[in-house]
């Protein structure tokens, strides 16, 4: 399996290098089209890489402990699916997997019917695959084997480090860190990586357009599906990561402004801005410069995010600790940054479209505000990540910015964004009279005021919570009333067909509703969540917010070879009535001297009751329990689903729908 993995991987790298040389020759001969041979080479390279990845997966499943990487992430007790996910459970494997994903994206781009990839854009994509594959094979090779030297000591190396050394098979592997043994591990990393990789194509087309001094709409036309899909995967990945960290204690709840989390948010913010500015360019022919800047910036931030995760320069729960590849990554990032800046400056004048915004209260103006706020958020988060590095380099002092910084800077910006999002659908293109908006506003406004009044009367007195819920309700009711108005006008029998035909617009609305729901979840967690901790003897009860938890018993079981399970049996009461039996647990790994908490959650749309077993004693017996009531949290996950579904709706409309769209009146139902 060693050679089956290693040789195809080296051949793939070789194929990419040859393809790059051939492409350079083609460009030299002023040939802008990509030679057939090059495309064939790149596709075969992808097949070869796939063989390499499959070999590594087989080694992981078969527990080939002669392989260093396998020995560090797999052990016999792990279920099969987790052995496969161990492919991205450590630095070497995940870098290899990532280079394969980038190659996959290039393969798909080359296979698409539309002639998307010309010589220049291929050159840029191939340089990326070549770089990451090279980094994997020469920086942190996942196929490194373990060798026994003649003096009996063990070293790891690809090939025999000295004459007489033999390949050594370890008896057992270390296994994946218990914190990574979670369903989230199966989809969160691949989804995030796929989202990242999809942004490579728009970047390549963007750079190629700039270099060849083209000035057409090709960029938007061809790369929009890639941006939308990239956005969908990135969004899905981020929301899943958030759910994972909510489900595993120690990762600080749903969002902790951990550097790696923050870094993954950066390309999401610029990609979101890009989607808005693409739309404006399509509809109004403005914002061309904005498009180019955002396409390049999104890619650069993806590379930055990879750098933050893999360089070891930033302290984070997610980060890999090794830093052997940080210098090449930094050089790579700076190269593309400089290239982007030079190209943009060079072409800046030529890119200028008519920048014309008729009124400060028009949809195009609102798009502009939205993008300014998104870029402000990007700046704020980027500063939070690089300020400690800059400050360290200049003054020698290590300084950090944590939650406090992000809470203070991002809260007002996010609130502003939600406000814009809430009222934006009411505002038409071009200049709008305020009177007209008012006419459409009063129903949603009335309903949201009513909501807040009802909540106030039923005892909710927290001003921030009421304000947040008001904003969210305003946005949701606006979308709802507008959709119903459309429904009345079109006729409900034809409504579904209409919705599907117009999925570009309603998909976007679904995404907006998703953002509002996520905002609702955040309002719940930040202003309404409460918790209590206490130690209980059997049949003692602990109260919180009308709930009571009763401790019944605690048991230790040894069913798993690797860990012992300590499980508490508890009963949850609401107003004196039993509503659930909950079993918060700990998995204790004696060999690792580590334990992980497995929370027990009673969940409904309104709230979670979240129990964590903090400590216990089976002899007394007692348990120490942390109980939280987290109102509205599940709207966050529901919102995440809305985002992905809405994004997919938009993604299924390709650019040929464009004519269709022109037919539609923007305001079908002016009453």
């Amino acid at each position, binding site marked *: 399996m060693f050679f089956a993995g290693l040789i195809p991987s080296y051949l793939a790298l070789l194929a990419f290098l040859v393809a790059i040389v051939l492409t350079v020759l083609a460009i030299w001969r002023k040939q802008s089209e990509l030679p057939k041979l090059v495309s064939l080479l790149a596709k075969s390279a992808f097949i070869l890489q796939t063989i390499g990845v499959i070999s590594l997966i087989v080694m992981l499943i078969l527990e080939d402990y002669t392989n260093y990487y396998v020995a560090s992430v797999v052990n016999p007790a792990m279920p099969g699916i987790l052995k496969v996910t161990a492919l991205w459970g450590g630095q070497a494997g995940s870098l290899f997997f990532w280079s394969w994903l980038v190659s996959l994206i290039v393969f798909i781009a080359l296979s698409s019917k539309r002639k998307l990839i010309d010589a220049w854009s291929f050159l840029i994509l191939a340089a990326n695959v070549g770089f990451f594959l090279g980094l994997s094979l020469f920086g942190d090779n996942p196929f490194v084997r*373990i060798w026994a030297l003649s003096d009996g000591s063990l070293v790891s190396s690809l090939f025999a480090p000295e004459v007489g050394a033999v390949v050594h098979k370890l008896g057992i592997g270390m296994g994946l860190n218990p914190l990574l043994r979670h369903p989230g591990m199966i989809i969160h990393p691949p989804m995030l990586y796929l989202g990242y990789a999809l942004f490579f194509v728009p970047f390549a087309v963007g750079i190629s357009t700039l270099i060849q001094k083209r000035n057409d709409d090709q960029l938007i036309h061809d790369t929009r599906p890639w941006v939308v899909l990239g956005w969908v995967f990135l969004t899905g990945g981020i929301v899943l990561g958030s759910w994972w960290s909510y489900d595993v204690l120690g990762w600080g709840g749903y969002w902790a402004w951990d550097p790696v989390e923050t870094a993954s948010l950066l390309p999401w913010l610029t990609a979101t801005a890009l989607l808005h500015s693409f739309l404006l360019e399509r509809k109004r022919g403005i914002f061309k410069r904005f498009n180019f800047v955002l396409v390049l910036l999104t890619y650069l931030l993806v590379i930055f995010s990879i750098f933050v995760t893999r360089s070891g320069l930033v302290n984070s729960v997610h980060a890999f600790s090794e830093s052997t590849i940080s210098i090449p990554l930094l050089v790579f990032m700076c190269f593309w940054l400089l290239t982007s800046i030079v190209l943009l400056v060079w072409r800046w004048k030529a890119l200028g479209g008519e920048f014309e915004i008729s009124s400060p209260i028009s949809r195009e103006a609102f798009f502009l505000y939205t993008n300014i706020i998104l870029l402000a958020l990007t700046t704020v988060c980027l500063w939070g990540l690089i300020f400690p590095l800059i400050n360290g380099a200049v003054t020698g002092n290590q300084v950090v910015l944590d939650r406090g910084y992000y809470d203070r800077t991002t809260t007002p910006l996010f609130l502003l964004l939600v406000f814009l999002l809430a009222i934006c659908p009411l505002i038409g293109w071009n200049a709008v009279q305020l009177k007209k908006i008012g006419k459409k506003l009063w129903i949603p406004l009335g309903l949201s005021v009513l909501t807040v009044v009802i909540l106030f009367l039923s005892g909710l007195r927290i001003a921030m919570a009421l304000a947040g819920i008001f904003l969210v309700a305003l946005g949701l009711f606006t979308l709802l009333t507008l959709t119903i108005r459309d429904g009345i006008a079109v006729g409900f029998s034809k409504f579904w067909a209409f919705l599907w035909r117009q999925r570009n617009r309603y998909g976007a609305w679904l995404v907006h509703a998703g953002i509002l729901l996520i905002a609702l979840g955040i309002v719940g967690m930040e202003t309404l969540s409460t918790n209590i901790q206490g130690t209980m003897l059997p049949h003692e009860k602990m109260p919180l917010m009308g709930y009571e938890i009763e401790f019944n018993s605690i048991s230790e079981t040894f069913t798993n070879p690797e860990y012992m399970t300590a499980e508490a049996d508890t009963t949850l009461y609401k107003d004196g009535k039993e509503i659930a039996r909950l079993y918060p647990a700990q998995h204790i790994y004696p060999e690792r001297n*580590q334990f992980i908490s497995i929370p027990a959650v009673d969940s409904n749309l309104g709230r979670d009751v979240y129990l964590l077993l903090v400590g216990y004693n089976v002899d007394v017996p007692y348990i*120490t329990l942390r109980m939280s009531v987290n109102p509205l949290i599940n709207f966050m996950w529901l919102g995440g689903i809305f985002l992905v579904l809405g994004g997919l709706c938009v993604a299924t409309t390709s650019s040929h729908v464009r004519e269709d769209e022109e037919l539609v009146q923007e305001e079908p139902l002016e009453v």
Partner: protein
Amino acid sequence: MKKKNTKLIIGIVIIIAAVVYLITSSTLSQSQYFLTVEELQSNQAEYVGKNVRMSGAVLGDTIEYDPQTLELTFQVAQIPGDHRVIEQMGGMSVVLAQAAHDPTLPKMTVHYVGPRPDLLKDEAQAIITGSLDENGIFQASELLLKCPSKYQSELPEQSK
């Protein structure tokens, strides 16, 4: 038409100014020093009561946890703050293992109230936010633990 655009530009400038203000004021008020045990102890008077962050190697034998009161105390030993130094010494896991068994290194007692983190164990790297009190004990408000773990170092060294 032109006038309207001027208005818009003025608006944008105001927004940018507000963001710059937000960033600078928050950076000034929220940034924390990230110190080693040694740096903290050699300038104890300067840092008492100030919100700082500290990194050190957890000494497993010193961990005391009372699940009734959720009071957690443990000691951390000095590890270098500079990445390059850590790399030169053979990587984080080696540094942590050495620090946990070297009695000559400066140590700091940490006090924390809350659930015991899953990764708190011997030779883990603790990144602790909080402040130093008058008795020289570090009162932690937040614990972040990372484990390059000795299990990695049980695997053979990579030969170049």
